[in-house]
């Protein structure tokens, strides 16, 4: 292989000026940064909706929101967070930026398709925001029939938005899988790939095979709304449970699309900051793919009380327990990686350890829901709300913020302030656990979810949770401002500040040149080939 010498050695931020160049770029790094900016904006929007009804729930009586406004806000919190923040989240922002560099390629396989995916995301986001003013959508992000069949214009616009965002997700997954198959640098075998890429590969499989079913569910829901074709609407002889089957066949793989990229980032950060090769590389890599496959066969556990046949309940419960095994493997392997390492508690490592803590609680509270008899009591209560927040917010978003801190020097060429970063990480940890651990107790005590007015005995839990929200919001904003501030007056970042062994740190500059490498790198060692201390 002759090494291509690239004459464009200026970094991608200065390669071309002006908004127009940014909007029509096909450079995966710029698209990744634009995705990152949009996703953080929507994270703040979704968070404010959460904050509004968190304060409303301070007391069971009406504080400042009417029941309709409360219902509208929890719906918008759900839709924005799921479809606009956590599902695209890590793959679109960090995956787009880091994957080609970690693999040693100049760009993704289909750069123009990548830009199309970004524009589909923006169009879908615009329609989702328009649905706020187009009326009041209060059917929850799950859009169950027959409540979502009320031909409420705002609900219909929300469905169109989810439909478009689905295609943006498919195109990202397609780009990643093709790039990983065909464009690896010479010497980069499958087992020399960093685990972040294995997580992107597993996410790509789910994006390609699950999202089209969401597109069909939404088409059928729109047809049901406009023409009343009677597939889902019980009043016309349809079966609302069929809609739940279609919806959860996509939405359960979707929750694994949400959490698996978080695994990838955690593997990178823990290995790098413990200066130790990952324990059981093959087990961790294959457990990501195993979760992707098992994710397709368990969707029925969302419908144990919804009137599913007892046989289907038992089969789904049996299969759901198998998802516990890959997650357990991962958590044990990460913990074993710390053994005999040299652990440096910088900000990314704090977020990674937090991830381990939260994901253990999230995983354990998930497995109890697979026990049929206990799920009858716990279903649709705050226990479920707390479980999926421990996994979606406590694991994915915290790994996402950890990943942003970890790759910030590479992406912007600037170092963020370490002490402010660490305090923010601790604040986020305390705030998150105060907010959501009490909801576990409240849920098992029998407090249903999506309740505007609740029984008085649960007021103390809601108040603790709201206080926790304040701490969490403070921590998140501190981290956000710390990063933005470093963009302007941060110190110049060296090429490899953390001493990592993956391609993006060893070969590419910070920030990388337009085509990532001066000449195509040749890979000679694994992603975590750290040396050991000379005794």
């Amino acid at each position, binding site marked *: 292989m002759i090494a291509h010498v690239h004459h464009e050695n200026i970094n991608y931020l200065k390669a071309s000026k002006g908004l127009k160049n940014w909007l029509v770029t096909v450079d995966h790094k710029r698209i990744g940064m634009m995705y990152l900016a949009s996703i953080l904006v929507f994270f703040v929007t979704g968070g404010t909706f959460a904050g509004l009804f968190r304060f409303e729930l301070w007391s069971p009586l009406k504080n400042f929101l009417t029941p309709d406004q409360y219902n509208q806000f929890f719906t918008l919190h759900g839709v924005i967070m799921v479809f606009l923040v956590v599902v695209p989240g890590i793959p679109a922002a960090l995956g787009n930026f880091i994957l080609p560099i970690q693999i040693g390629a100049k760009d993704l*396989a289909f750069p123009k398709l990548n830009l199309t995916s970004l524009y589909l995301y923006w169009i879908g986001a615009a329609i989702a925001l328009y649905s706020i003013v187009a009326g009041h959508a209060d059917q929850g992000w799950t859009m169950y029939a027959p409540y979502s069949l009320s031909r409420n214009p705002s609900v219909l616009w929300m469905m169109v938005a989810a439909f478009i965002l689905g295609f943006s997700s498919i195109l990202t*997954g397609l780009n990643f899988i093709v790039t990983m198959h065909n464009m690896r640098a010479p010497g980069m075998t499958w087992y020399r790939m960093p685990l972040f890429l294995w997580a992107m590969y597993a996410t790509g499989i789910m994006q390609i095979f699950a999202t089209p*079913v969401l*597109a069909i*569910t939404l088409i059928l829901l729109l047809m049901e709304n406009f023409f*009343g*074709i009677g597939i889902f609407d019980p009043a016309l002889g*349809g079966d609302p449970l*069929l809609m739940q089957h279609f919806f959860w066949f996509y939405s359960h793989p979707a929750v694994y699309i949400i959490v698996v990229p978080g695994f990838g980032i955690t593997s990178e950060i823990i290995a790098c900051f413990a200066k130790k090769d990952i324990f059981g590389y093959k087990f961790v890599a294959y457990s990501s793919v195993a979760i992707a496959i098992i994710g397709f066969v368990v969707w029925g556990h969302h419908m144990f009380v919804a009137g599913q046949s007892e046989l289907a309940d038992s089969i789904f419960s049996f299969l759901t327990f198998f998802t516990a095994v890959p997650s357990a493997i991962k958590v044990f392997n990460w913990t074993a990686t710390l053994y005999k390492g040299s652990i440096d508690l910088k900000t990314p490592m704090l977020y990674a350890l937090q991830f381990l803590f939260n994901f253990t609680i999230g995983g354990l509270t998930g497995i109890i829901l697979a026990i049929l008899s206990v799920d009858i009591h716990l279903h649709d209560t705050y226990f479920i709300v707390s479980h999926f927040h421990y996994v979606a917010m406590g694991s994915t978003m915290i790994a996402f913020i950890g990943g942003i801190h970890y790759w910030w020097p590479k992406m912007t060429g600037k170092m963020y302030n370490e002490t402010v970063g660490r305090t923010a990480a601790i604040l986020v940890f305390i705030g998150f656990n105060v907010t959501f651990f009490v909801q576990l107790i409240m849920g098992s005590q029998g407090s249903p979810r999506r309740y505007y007015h609740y029984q008085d005995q649960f007021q103390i839990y809601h108040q603790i949770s709201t206080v926790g929200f304040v701490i969490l919001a403070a921590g998140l904003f501190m981290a956000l401002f710390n990063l933005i501030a470093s963009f302007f007056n941060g110190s110049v970042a060296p090429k490899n500040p953390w001493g990592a062994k993956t391609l993006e740190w060893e070969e590419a500059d910070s920030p990388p040149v337009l085509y990532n490498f001066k000449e195509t790198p040749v890979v000679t060692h694994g992603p975590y080939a750290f040396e050991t201390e000379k005794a």
Partner: protein
Amino acid sequence: MANATAGLPEHHVAHHFDTANQEFDSIKTGMWLFLASEIMMFGALFVGALIFLTLHPAAFREGANHLDWRLGAINTFFLLTSGLTMGLAVIAAQAGQQAKVRMNLVMSLFLASGFLVVKAYEYSLKIHHGTLPGRLWHGEGFHDPFVHVFYGFYFVMTGLHGLHVLIGMGLMIFALTRASKVQFSRSYFTPIEMVALYWALVDLVWVFLFPLLYLIG
């Protein structure tokens, strides 16, 4: 190269690929992944139809009886033949015969439009008989209370398939423009191959759609 003297410019490999083979393999795997998401989309509709068939077989059979299988047979012939001409177009492109490529593409376009004409006629029959889904239903002489749901599935599935036929025809026109802009040869025939793959998918979906809706009655 074959008749490079035809004066059409040669294709050059995109900058971020190293070799032509890598580019072709990437595009082909990318196409197959896109076709996979299309198959999952139609597959979900087939699952809905099969579940409806198991829940209300009588309604499904009664609805299917009222479909004219002859129109379905003509459409099957149109699609299979256009699949043939697309296959021949790929072979012609690999042999570098630009004129034969254009002729085959025009043949496929003609057959595809034939399919759409028959489909439009069939829809007008349905509108005339009033067998439209849901609220628009005002058909006579039907007994099963669920037969309108069959027509709900019928219109969603054939409508989505018809949309994909339209997209396929658009791609054929795009391939025609490419055929007059760049010289195809054994080392570069990607656009034709990809349009042929997409069209074969449209055939594949129709091969399953036709018996499920028309022949089970």
